[in-house]
């Protein structure tokens, strides 16, 4: 009887642990799937979905469950959604939100549970100040200062920059307001003369007065710090005005297909910045995980075969972050602290180069992917200008 009891107990216990083991590993994905920043949200969602397809259903012996949520590009909805995910679903792993103001709004609820948090976005330095030093926070997009450091270096590489005049036009939103002082700082340090700095209201329909004021200062370079609607309006109205400003820089949107389509012929000559441009660099496949982290060319082929369009950097970085997370969980199991430590010390080759995390020196503990490339639109295609190792062309003057 005792033996029977023991066998029964063992059986029950193993059933219990089996039940436990069946509980899926939940990964929260909170993205801007509607509202102002939906373009970014959708590209990331595509990347995450692709990653989950390529990886498969299980990790560390358990099923994976992605909990997709739309933060509606709205702070209040973000707070409610994230509170639900952290308290009810008890997630240990979180991806997104991406856009600066929404990621900022997510900080409050995130602190209630502090899951591992990947933010492939949020270039504003306010996020760095608030959560940069947190060991659970992984920032996988450059911060604003990385942008302007690279842009000024690219300009110095391609142009003779002595006495070149710069006009800065920035949008009065979270993005524009945090980028402008950094742009000012880096351009001044690089020896440019800033001749105009004009703020424009977000969603402003009429930029003519501002453009006229800027034109009067006869700048050589126009830096337009804005996103979505504003960058389209700027490109189109600038093109119509024939101001003959030689060099046009748009760090926010020039890399996005939506911007290129909406701007039409006005996109010609605009200079943009991204840390991945398809078809340019071919990083080798990861030696240990070649199936999920193939070479860049291989990944691009897989993506295009699956989705029928050319990938952009948000597709890829979100894909990579999910793979990094899953690889870490596979290695050390579903233990938040251990996974975070594992990710922090990982040094994986990815289709976007080395995925190693390191401190920024300005507050963030875990930062990856901060080396950017500068490109210019020539005839509807990207020509790389910087860094020198990847440059494919010389800078050209904008047609109008």
């Amino acid at each position, binding site marked *: 009887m005792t033996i029977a009891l023991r066998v029964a107990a063992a059986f029950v216990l193993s059933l219990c642990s089996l039940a436990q083991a069946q509980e899926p590993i939940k990964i929260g994905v909170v993205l801007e*799937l*509607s*509202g102002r920043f939906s373009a970014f949200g959708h590209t990331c969602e595509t990347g995450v979905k692709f990653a989950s397809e390529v990886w498969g259903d299980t990790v560390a012996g358990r099923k994976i469950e992605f909990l*997709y*949520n*739309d933060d*509606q*590009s*709205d*702070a*209040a*909805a973000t*707070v*409610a*959604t994230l*509170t*639900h995910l*952290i*308290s*009810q679903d008890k997630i240990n792993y979180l991806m997104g939100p991406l856009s600066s*103001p929404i990621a*900022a*709004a997510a*900080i*409050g609820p995130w*602190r*209630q549970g502090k899951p591992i948090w990947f933010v492939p976005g949020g270039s*504003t330095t*306010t996020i760095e100040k*608030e959560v940069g030093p947190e060991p659970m926070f992984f920032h996988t997009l450059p911060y604003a200062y990385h942008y302007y450091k690279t842009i000024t270096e690219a300009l110095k590489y391609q142009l003779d920059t002595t006495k070149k005049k710069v006009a800065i036009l920035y949008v*009065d*939103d*979270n993005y*524009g*307001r*945090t980028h402008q002082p950094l742009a000012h700082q880096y351009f001044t340090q690089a020896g440019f003369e800033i001749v105009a700095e004009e703020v424009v*209201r*977000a969603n402003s329909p009429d930029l003519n007065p501002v453009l006229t004021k800027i034109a009067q200062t006869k700048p050589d370079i126009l830096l337009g710090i804005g996103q979505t609607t504003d960058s389209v309006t700027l490109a189109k109205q600038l093109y119509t005005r024939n101001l003959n400003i030689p060099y046009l820089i748009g760090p926010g949107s020039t890399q996005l297909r939506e911007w290129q389509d909406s701007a039409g012929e006005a996109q010609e000559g605009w200079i943009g910045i991204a840390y991945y441009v398809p078809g340019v660099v071919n990083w080798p496949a990861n030696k240990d995980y070649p199936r999920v982290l193939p070479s860049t060319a291989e990944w691009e082929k897989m993506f295009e075969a699956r989705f029928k369009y050319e990938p952009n950097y948000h597709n890829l970085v979100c894909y990579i972050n999910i793979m990094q997370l899953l690889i870490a969980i596979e290695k050390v199991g579903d233990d938040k602290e251990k996974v975070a430590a594992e990710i922090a010390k990982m040094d994986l080759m990815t289709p976007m180069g080395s995925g190693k995390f390191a401190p920024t020196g300005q507050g963030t503990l875990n930062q990856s992917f901060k080396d950017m490339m500068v490109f210019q639109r020539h005839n509807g295609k990207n020509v790389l200008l910087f860094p020198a190792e990847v440059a494919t062309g010389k800078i050209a003057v904008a047609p109008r």
Partner: protein
Amino acid sequence: MPKVVVRVFLLIASVAFLALPFINSPVLNDLTFRICLLIMVAISWNLMANAGLISLGHSAFWGVGCYATMFAANLFALPLIIGLLFALVAGALIGLIFTLLTARLRGFFFAICTLGLSEGLRVTSLMLPDLTGGAVGMFLNQPIPRLEVFVLAAVGAFLCIVFSAFLTQTRFHFACRGMRNHEGAAQMLGVDPRPYRLAVVGLSAAMTSYAGGLSAIYGAYIDPSIAFDLRVTVQSQIAPIIGGMYTVAGPIIGAFVIVVLADQTRVLFGSSEGISQLIFGIILVLAILFMPKGVVGLWERWTSRRVAGSNTPIQHPLVHPKVTTAERTP
């Protein structure tokens, strides 16, 4: 319903309501919190509507409360309750100044001015980043005092309900109704609308500012578009309308319905923002057309029809929208 039963029921409900914040379930707390805030906002909108003042800019007061409370918390490191006092005072002040400026305006013109106030304040707070943080926003510099926030929200909502019930027994209430029907006629009967307007808008603004301040602390981050969010305006109207305008129970019922509805649409429809706002719009339109007295009105009609031999003519709400039979405590 016998009065005693009603009173006992209300007592139990009040105690339960005030005890809710102490149950430590984050999802329940979050839901209750948002319902409490909307109850306050809905009651405040209803208060103004009762005096004939339609507000299309309630987000103005909400936003003022957000910033006032954030300033108090960040700049002066004051305890939450003092910060909320700031919000009350700031909101009331804005309301009073606004009323003085628009003293001669009624109906549609007043409504448009409230819209102007909320949008104007939003643009101003964007253009003064040194003061308000501008588009970059303001973060709360301390950890969120969650229990305090929930308790203060429940207490605030409770006080608003009690206050609005109390008001219906006073002369104040009837003066407002008179103003609503026809301000000119009310004046001829000896009701000077100005002090009533000031009182109504001041109180209303204070309530909404209080709610806004709580929401700012809870979210720990505000910027002009969050603080002066037009969705506050929309919800502030829909809740009383669907619950039953001009009544005491209406805003409360409406608040429950709206918050639960918003949550459910978020859960069910892959949370597309458009869908929940669309549903709100449909509710608003249907309510105005077919159910202008809201849930409370439906309840009244249903209970009055059951009284045998009732001589009350059924007033078609579209034809007699000004005559309400629900102007008493539930």
